[in-house]
């Protein structure tokens, strides 16, 4: 589905990502794990066409997407949920979902998708006319995911979905991510919450100061002594 090869990205004069390569196979959940400042968000910004990479090749569904503008990527089926407040606070829940289906790809099936989203998150249907800025943290996360689903993604990219959420909301968000994969959507998620991510991911990469230092299936990583020491505090 997605393949990144030798990605190098700089933030202004400061190079943050050094030769990062990873893959997201079809119908899988892949995690990129790492602490603050490891270059996770920068990697995603390059992926989404928001930062031009210095070098490297990104292919999506077998075609190169390096240099393709952000809004075109959404239409191709790669939808990213940025970290925190991914929704439009000044708009109602209904308007957020409506604009979620903005692309030509999503528009013709908008009504069916909306029914589907409301069936996954019935709470959103109740809050339909409320402005997104007044939602609780958990509801806003549901809306962010619901809005992304409205775009009919084939690959959903999440930037730290657990950030700033209560533990119980994090659990339900991760359940929702599993549910989304079972509907045939591949998932790439960037996380600091290593333990929970390894529970749902098929494969994960460990990113440290802009380089991939380890990768493997979730079971392999969870039993790797270095990973256990550094990230799982076991």
């Amino acid at each position: 589905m997605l393949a990144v090869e030798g990605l190098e990205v700089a933030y202004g004069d400061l190079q943050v990502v050094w030769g990062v390569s990873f893959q997201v196979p079809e119908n899988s959940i892949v995690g990129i794990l790492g602490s603050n400042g490891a270059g996770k968000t920068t990697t995603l910004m390059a992926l989404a066409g928001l930062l031009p990479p210095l070098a490297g090749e990104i292919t999506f569904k077998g075609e190169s997407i390096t240099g393709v503008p952000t809004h075109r990527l959404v239409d191709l089926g790669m939808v990213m949920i940025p970290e925190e407040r991914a929704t439009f606070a000044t708009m109602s829940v209904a308007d957020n979902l409506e604009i979620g289906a903005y692309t030509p790809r999503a528009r013709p099936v908008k009504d069916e998708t909306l029914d589907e989203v409301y069936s996954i998150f019935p709470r959103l249907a109740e809050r339909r006319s409320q402005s997104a800025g007044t939602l609780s943290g958990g509801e806003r996360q549901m809306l962010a995911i619901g809005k992304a689903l409205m775009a009919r993604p084939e690959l959903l990219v999440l930037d730290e979905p657990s950030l700033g959420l209560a533990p119980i909301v994090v659990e339900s968000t991760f359940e929702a991510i599993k549910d989304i994969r079972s509907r045939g959507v591949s998932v790439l998620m960037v996380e600091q919450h290593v333990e929970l991510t390894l529970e749902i991911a098929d494969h994960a990469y460990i990113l440290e100061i802009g380089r991939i230092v380890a990768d493997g299936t979730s079971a392999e990583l969870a039993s790797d002594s270095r990973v256990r020491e550094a990230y799982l505090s076991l």
Partner: protein
Amino acid sequence: MTQLILQSAVSGLLVGGMYGLVALGLALAFGVLKVLNVAHGELLMLGGYASFFAFSLWGVDPFLSLPIVFVVLFLFGVLLYQVLFKYVTRFDIENRIKNSLLISFGLVLVLQALAVRFFTADERTISTSYSSEAITVGVVRIPVIRLAGFVVAVIATVALEWMLNHTRFGRAVRATAEDWTRAALTGVDVKWVYMIAFGISAGLAGIAGAMISFGYAVSPSIGLGWTLKALIVVVLAGLGSMRGILIAGMFLGLTEALAAVWVGGAYREVVALVVFLIVMSFRPQGFFGRARV
């Protein structure tokens, strides 16, 4: 005295409608592109001349030429975006404001000089057969063309608000105004939204100019004065509500008119600015703005 106050109040509200109409386009460009276009008044001036020449050269009624003026200025706005403001929108928000101020101030000088060169510095007014007609309501006399200008302002406000709230493009505009990165991640072609929004902003300036050359007067130097009024109105209203901008415009017009009666004509703008400062110290987000922007 009552008659004078009533008459002034009505004239003030009508002028205020024009302030609101001018501010509408300025607020759209600022809210969406984060570009502060101080040449907005010069676009208005061009719209005024377009309407004036359509009338004096070809005898086109100013109401008939209104849609044409909108389209011409819309296209001119798109052109300005493509050759100037597109480059400003590459910066972050803070630098966009600074750079757009410099660029648009240059544009003020260029457009004014060109207008003097091609249209001469004379003040022009459109006078049609019905220009001097008026309606009398009680003791108040309302000139028809100024009332028409006000009606145009109301229609423009309602139309813009409807477009923003109920169309697909409007939702894209609101999304872009709130956060362009998130809008792009939603699939919105942000550059296209910028271009069309700037075109609409210029088109609205054109309509305002047409109504001003009709109910008031147009000359190459009128721009900056209207831009300043519009800036005051935008700050007074706060971003977020188009209706709020029209109301704030009427508030400013009314304040000026009443100040002219009670304090004296020479002080109308001073009094209006003092009232503006008082409002700002109690409600820095403006009448209708959201508390946190």
